[in-house]
């Protein structure tokens, strides 16, 4: 009886999830305050410590970076995905790349400009099932004050009241004015596509 229902969607796109502070089940402090309080049987609580939000891009070769602070409010009944919602927020200042120069530059005005725009958000408009265990959340990604449509596809696995979702979407960084200035307005140093991946573990 558990199988069929539960699941999460966890999704989050660039943004999801729960805070990475220590208490695993704690929704991230101030971050979570900006999320709606969802109610119902299919509201999922994200396990922040086991969830990740990261992206891969190319600067002098591929690199990856992850965000340690994010929060999400997720409601999803896998059997009725159209009733679900995903709201996620990511603290952009929590970014860490595997290249120190990248980590140092991302918060600056040419990139995330975190003083002006400290968070990125994703909000789903429509969640639908595309295949067995596979869903798509069409929604809006807001980054650096710019909102554009984004579609998060994710695979969902559930086990009783626990669920795991692996999803991703790819954005063009220039759609969000990430990487401005003469050196970055083209792809000579930093490629345009950025693949955002999320892995969410949640329970209900």
């Amino acid at each position, binding site marked *: 009886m558990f199988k069929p229902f539960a699941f999460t969607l966890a999704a989050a796109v660039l943004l999801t999830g729960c805070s990475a502070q220590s208490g695993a089940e704690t929704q991230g402090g101030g971050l979570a305050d900006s999320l709606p309080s969802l109610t119902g049987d299919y509201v999922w609580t994200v396990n922040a410590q086991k969830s990740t939000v990261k992206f891969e891009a190319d600067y002098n070769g591929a690199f990856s970076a992850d965000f340690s602070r994010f929060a999400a409010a997720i409601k999803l009944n896998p059997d009725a995905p159209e009733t679900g919602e995903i709201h996620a927020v990511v603290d952009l200042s929590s970014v860490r790349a595997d290249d*120190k120069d990248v980590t*140092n530059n991302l918060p600056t005005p*040419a990139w995330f400009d975190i003083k002006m725009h400290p968070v990125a958000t994703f909000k789903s408009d429509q969640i639908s099932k595309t295949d067995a265990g596979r869903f798509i959340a069409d929604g809006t990604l807001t980054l650096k004050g710019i909102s554009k449509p984004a579609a998060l596809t994710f695979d969902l696995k559930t086990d009783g009241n626990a669920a795991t979702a692996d999803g991703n979407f790819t954005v063009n960084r220039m759609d969000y004015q990430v990487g401005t200035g003469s050196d970055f307005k083209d792809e*000579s140093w930093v490629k345009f596509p950025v693949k955002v991946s999320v892995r969410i573990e949640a329970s209900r």
Partner: protein
Amino acid sequence: MSASVKSTYTKTAIWLHWMIAALIIGQLIGGKVMHAMDPAPLKFELYQLHKSFGFIILALSVARLLWRLGHKPPALPDGMKPFEKIGAKLSHIAFYILMIGIPISGWVMVSSSPYIIETKIFKLIPVFDLPGVPRTEGFNALTKDVHEYMAIAIAALLVLHIGAALKHHFVEKDDVLNRMAPRIKVRR
């Protein structure tokens, strides 16, 4: 053997002279090449290398200046006209200003860049960005111009310096070039 203790430069001065000379010529050529390159990982590496050698030149030049202040160089040949002696002195002062000033202008450039790229000499020794330097595109552009014009100036000075040394050696036939030549155990 001949003569006075002051007939030649000290070994230290000679070593510093040729070491710095080789590095400056390398930096002038390397700077030109890397600047003209299209963006690529190699271009990035060359800039990091250029920064590394710049700090080496800065350290050696400061050491050389300190050495120079403590060790009087051999006198210029008596045959030189007063204005030639003044010219030689001025060109040497200009060299010291540029040898120290160009690396510092590069350091200011790096410190004012809107891009935060860590400076690590040969990827080993971290160097801090100079404090109090405005990190703006406008100021950064100015520092790039200053660095470039100083490099052009030292290239011009180099031509003058080499020309003068050759003139001393082949035209005046004095010992000006020889006394800065690397000490090889050979006597004429």
